[in-house]
């Protein structure tokens, strides 16, 4: 296997600037890798020609001594970001044939920084799922296999499953993801890579197909914490086109990345020790605690009492917002149209055929919880509990409370399960996000760092959560954890070529 695709983003960047390699060479290597790993179904749309064009332009800029922070770096974009002139599907049948006439702010930021588009990665339909099995374009396969059942294909997690699989399988240096309740962090854990959800508002939502507007947040997926920080640095911006975009300036993450955890207070929330969690998850978590303590952090036991209510809260708020955001898909302006005898029937037919089962379920739940007579009992109640969940976090981060600088938790309650598992019961699938959803509801930044292997040889991640807009501490702790864990196992498919 070509050495070029083994380079981290930071390494490739250094070699590009030193002109030891060209973007064209790097991009060609990734195009070849995309083709070789096509069976994983990580990409919905591959754009090799566009990639080579962009690489050529990047090389020209580098030759002139110009170029942005990601000049010549070949990345993948989750197919939830609108890309001008490149089909965008959101993993749904209902967006058939849709070619955006505009570019999302996040992807535009990346192109401005010189990055190269390899293609659009697969995802759960409208980002609704935790296993990348709800995509209209078929499930994504995780490049990892378990040692006990090596023939069984594993899910890469979801919803950013295509991005996770692509980064793990070396068919992209790094990729964008979006995280509404864990859609970056959980697949990162399942695929043995780093995935980060920044604070709500850090990355503009403009041009990202909306799922749940108060929760959706874009973030980086990469092989190292440093790479994730580099990608996020370019993705984030204050954008007047998204009224929820944060005006707070993003600090230079690389400046403090290697600061270590000495003297930091790291909280360990007891409520994340949930019933029925596999022992190996608890063991890894304890391992993580020990690593950070050995690195000089002060470990503090904390309580986030409303943690158990986060998932049910999420499954009211997210579907409610989704039912409204997905109202626009009706066969009038873009995508699929299924004929009907009249306009109302055309709408219903289009949506009935265009949306998959999980999306329909959530639209139905969302419609119900917002309907007359049920709004207070469900939606308003959920918003109140959401306030309590945020208050829990505020208390532990507050100087007058536990005063912690970051929290350490597991990312997911299991390793990657086999394709087909957990599909009989929606709630079972929802439980995958038990550790990621609370921070989503609170808007806080979080990162998943690969920390070890399960007993059956599958990767497991640990999650670091931080204060609102304190990405700097999150990546700093994440980097320390990464160093201590020294996770260097390659995915089964990469190891075996």
């Amino acid at each position: 296997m070509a050495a070029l695709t083994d380079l981290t983003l930071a390494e490739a960047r250094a070699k590009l600037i030193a002109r030891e390699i060209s973007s064209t060479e790097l991009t060609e290597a990734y195009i070849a890798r995309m083709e070789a790993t096509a069976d994983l179904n990580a990409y919905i749309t591959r754009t090799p020609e566009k990639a080579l064009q962009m690489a050529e332009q990047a090389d020209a800029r580098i030759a002139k001594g110009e170029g942005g922070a990601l000049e010549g770096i070949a990345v993948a974009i989750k197919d939830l970001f609108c890309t001008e002139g490149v089909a965008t599907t959101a993993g749904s049948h209902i967006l058939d044939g849709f070619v955006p006439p505009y570019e999302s702010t996040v992807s535009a930021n990346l192109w401005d920084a010189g990055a190269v588009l390899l293609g659009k990665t697969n995802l759960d339909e409208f980002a609704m799922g935790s296993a990348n099995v709800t995509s209209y374009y078929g499930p994504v396969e995780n490049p990892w296999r378990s040692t006990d059942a090596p023939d069984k294909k594993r899910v890469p997690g979801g919803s950013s499953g295509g991005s996770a699989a692509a980064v793990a399988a070396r068919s992209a240096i790094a990729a964008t993801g979006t995280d509404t309740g864990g859609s970056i962090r959980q697949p990162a854990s399942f695929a043995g890579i780093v995935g980060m959800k920044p604070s709500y508002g850090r990355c503009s939502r403009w041009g990202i197909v909306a799922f749940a507007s108060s929760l959706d947040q874009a973030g980086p997926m990469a092989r190292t914490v440093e790479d994730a920080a580099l990608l996020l640095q370019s993705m984030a911006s204050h954008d007047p086109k998204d009224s929820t975009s944060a005006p707070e300036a993003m600090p230079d993450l690389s400046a403090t990345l290697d600061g270590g955890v000495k003297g930091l207070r790291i909280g360990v929330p007891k409520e994340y020790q949930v019933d029925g969690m596999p022992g190996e998850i608890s063991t890894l978590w304890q391992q993580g605690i020990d690593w950070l303590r050995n690195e000089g952090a002060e470990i503090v036991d904390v309580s986030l009492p409303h943690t158990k209510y986060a998932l049910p809260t999420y499954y009211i708020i997210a579907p409610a917002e989704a039912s409204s955001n997905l109202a626009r898909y009706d066969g009038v302006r873009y995508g699929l149209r299924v004929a009907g005898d009249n306009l109302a029937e055309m709408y219903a037919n289009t949506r009935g055929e265009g949306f998959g089962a999980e999306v329909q379920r959530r639209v139905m739940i969302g419609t119900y919880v917002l309907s007359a007579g049920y709004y207070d009992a469900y939606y308003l109640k959920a918003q109140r509990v959401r306030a309590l969940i945020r208050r829990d976090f505020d208390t532990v981060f507050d100087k007058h409370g536990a005063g912690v600088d970051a929290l350490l938790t597991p990312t997911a309650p299991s390793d990657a399960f086999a394709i087909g598992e957990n599909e009989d019961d929606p709630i079972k699938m929802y439980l995958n996000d038990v550790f990621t959803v609370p921070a989503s509801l609170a808007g806080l930044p979080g990162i998943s760092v690969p920390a070890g292997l399960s007993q059956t040889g599958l990767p497991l991640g640990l999650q670091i959560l931080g204060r609102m807009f304190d990405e700097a501490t999150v990546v700093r702790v994440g980097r320390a954890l990464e160093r201590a864990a020294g996770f260097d196992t390659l995915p089964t498919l990469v190891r075996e070529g």
Partner: protein
Amino acid sequence: MSLDKATVASIATLARLRVPDDRLEAMVGELNAILGWVEQLDEVDTSAVEPMASVTGHALPQREDAVSDGGYQARVTANAPEAAHGFYVVPKVVE
């Protein structure tokens, strides 16, 4: 609170979803399971808590009242399943 088939059918109408009858049956069970599960929120005393609608703590940004976008009708309608003269075209609505 448990939904019956008729209620689920009316939610589907409200949501503008054609749900075939056989699928409707299954949906009744699925939705009831999810609603039953989220109802554990009733345990939480929220009597003194304001609902939280946004997490950033910021107020809505304001700008000059000026046109900042638009003027490219053809680009906007290019994705339409059916369009004519700059309009979207749908089956005739009888008023």
